[in-house]
């Protein structure tokens, strides 16, 4: 019993939620740790190219054209003065030694409580301890928004299915026409594999929620309807 690691801080206090293909960029997945007190800790997921392609980070910049998370000031219990960030608001830009640049997003709508300034001095934390000390920022969604924001994200199970689908797809494609990394996933039905029992409540909510949203994810999610139908076909195969 003592040999195995006891449940970690993340396991004990947080629920893992995911946003896949952030801003429509295939594979750019982010992890959001949600606490029952509404605090959301924004991280990158293991499947993000920075980690899975073992990139080396040269710089993490918390500001860009027209935005700066470094200028965020928060005072008092009510976090007055905090920047109010939309889901797609950029948190930071990550530059890797191979020249690639990734923008990491907020993923949940809410107040920016803090950014992880340790990343500026030790960018490697992002890859070494992606879901703990390498967190990007802490967001506090509004009291009314929290549940909806969490609902919009994928559960661990859903995230696993997405990863499974991706690997099947790439294996399949490698058989037919071998392709290098970056698959053009946007053209593929992303959520094709959805377990039947989940189709009911959860996805209905998702759909309703997402229809209210006017960011570019809507296009993709619009196709979710017939993807669900396909899911049963896939499963019956």
């Amino acid at each position, binding site marked *: 019993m*003592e*040999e195995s*690691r*006891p449940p*970690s*801080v993340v396991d004990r*206090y947080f629920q893992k939620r995911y946003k896949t293909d952030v801003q429509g960029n295939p594979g750019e997945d982010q992890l959001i740790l949600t*606490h029952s*007190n*509404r*605090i959301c*800790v924004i991280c990158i997921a293991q499947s993000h190219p920075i980690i899975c392609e073992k990139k080396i980070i040269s710089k993490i910049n918390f500001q860009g054209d027209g935005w700066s998370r470094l200028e965020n000031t*928060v*005072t*008092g*219990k009510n*976090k007055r003065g905090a920047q109010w960030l939309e889901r797609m608001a950029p948190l930071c830009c990550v530059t890797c030694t191979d020249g690639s640049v990734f923008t990491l997003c907020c993923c949940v709508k809410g107040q920016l*409580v*803090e950014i*992880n300034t*340790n990343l500026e001095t030790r960018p490697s*934390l992002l890859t070494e301890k992606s879901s*703990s*000390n390498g*967190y990007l920022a*802490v967001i*506090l969604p509004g009291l009314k928004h929290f549940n909806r924001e969490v609902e919009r994200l994928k559960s661990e199970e859903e995230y696993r299915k997405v990863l499974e689908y991706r690997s099947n797809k790439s294996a399949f494609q490698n058989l037919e026409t071998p392709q290098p990394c970056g698959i053009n996933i946007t053209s593929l039905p992303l959520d094709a594999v959805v377990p039947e029992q989940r189709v009911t409540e959860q996805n209905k909510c998702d759909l309703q929620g997402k229809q209210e949203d006017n960011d570019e994810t809507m296009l993709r999610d619009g196709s979710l309807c017939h993807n669900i139908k396909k899911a049963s076909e896939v499963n019956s195969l």
Partner: protein
Amino acid sequence: MGRLARAEQTQQMDVFEFFTSSLEECKQIAATLVEVGCCARCLLRFLGESKSSSYKYSYQNVYDVLGLERSSNVNSVQDCPCPSCLGILQKYADNLFLSKILQKVQDDSYEFSDYQCSLILPVCIAIRQRAIHIFLKKKFGVIYSVQEDKLPTVKDIWKWSCGFKVGELLSAQFQNKSGFDILMTFTYPESNKECSFLLDTFPDVFKKRKQRKYGFETFTRANVAKALIDMDDSKFEDCTSCPPSVPIAECSCEITCTHEPVFVAGRYQKYSRVLSQTPWIVEGKRVMEGSVEELICDPILNTFKPSDHRFSSSGREDVDVRMLGDGRPFIVELINPHCVIFSTQDMSLLQEKINSCSKDVQVRDLQIVSREDTAILKDGEISKTKCYSAECWCERPLTETDLVKLAGIKDLVLQQKTPLRVLHRRTAATRERLIHSLSAKVLSDKLFKLNLNTQAGTYIKEFVHSDFGRTTPNLGELLGAECDIINLDVESVDVDWPPKINLSIGEKNISSTSAETINYTDAEQNEESADKT
């Protein structure tokens, strides 16, 4: 009575201490006041009697001394209330009313050994008093050059004449200052109307009073008193009648009893890891059954029967943290308690009652403390040190070098960002905290016991697991390996208050202390077995 009879016979004035020693003058003034409708106590009042015992005499005695006709006065008293005191020193000072006070106190079933009383008078009484004073000044000149505020007040006279009598009825001594207060609120329906001329004279002062913060009350005791000072006699006479009109209505009186708060202090130990300190209610729903607060307070509330209460303690521990050692000091403020007389034996019985209710919470040193002492608790909350013991995990086994390193740490300064688990309700800040000393003992391969002595307000869990690197330095950093916390116990809260109660007197107490230690070890063993499952 015998003395008074003599005084009556010789018509001596030595029973009273008036402004003037001339009996003739006194009689004249008294007759004038009777004409205006004043009651006997108000006669004495305007004659400057400031000896409290004088007001204990009956109306008849007063009339006799002042050589007044009996029959005519008795009638006028019955017809209309006195224009000076509005009946507060007549009807509201007679035996019938005093028995109503007794009734009210009995109905509320308060327990007390002495009492005080307070009166809230109609605002217009100040105006009426001024009017009578001006009237007397005009008529008798130099005698009434004496300041109006040198006259005894209606409140004082009520207490002089009734305080002792009520005390006898209640079998409790009357005191100027006591924990038990009988409040009489007198309302006179015409009060605002009688003050209304002030609104015309000082429109600025009284108009802006029509605000919520003044309870929409235009005329208050304070602003009317100030206005009367600002107004000279002739102006006052122009505005209202001197002497004042005979009251057309009667005062009504509401009696309310209150007891000043009683503070019960003690120390509590908590042996459960699934018990919150205060009731845990989210959006009206209970997250967890029971709480330390309720387990301690319920028996206390049943004993002291207060209208309300406040529980506070020197700091607090998390739901899953045990409170061991001598326990954590706490105070229960009992607001308006109905029962207050408890001996040390009673308190130790109450303590036993609390301790018999639950194995999870045990209380010691339970006692009644003064309000002043309660400040010690709150001061201790920030200034004192605390000792903890934590069961921790490390990704690699701890070496002898590690143990030596940790033991060598003295007054380590931590920079703690507000922990994520409380960040939603606390200000986001980086706080400096001190760890005075540290020591570790290996339990098994990767588990160890960490003992810490820290400044109050240090977040121990976060020091161990680092809270995503938000507490620095942290245990993981010190050891160069990932650490986590499994269990936490508070071993001591170093506040020397409340005073320890020595339970060595009497056999019964000795047995109860040993029972307590047995409970303690039992609870600990239970906890340990629970931990392993």
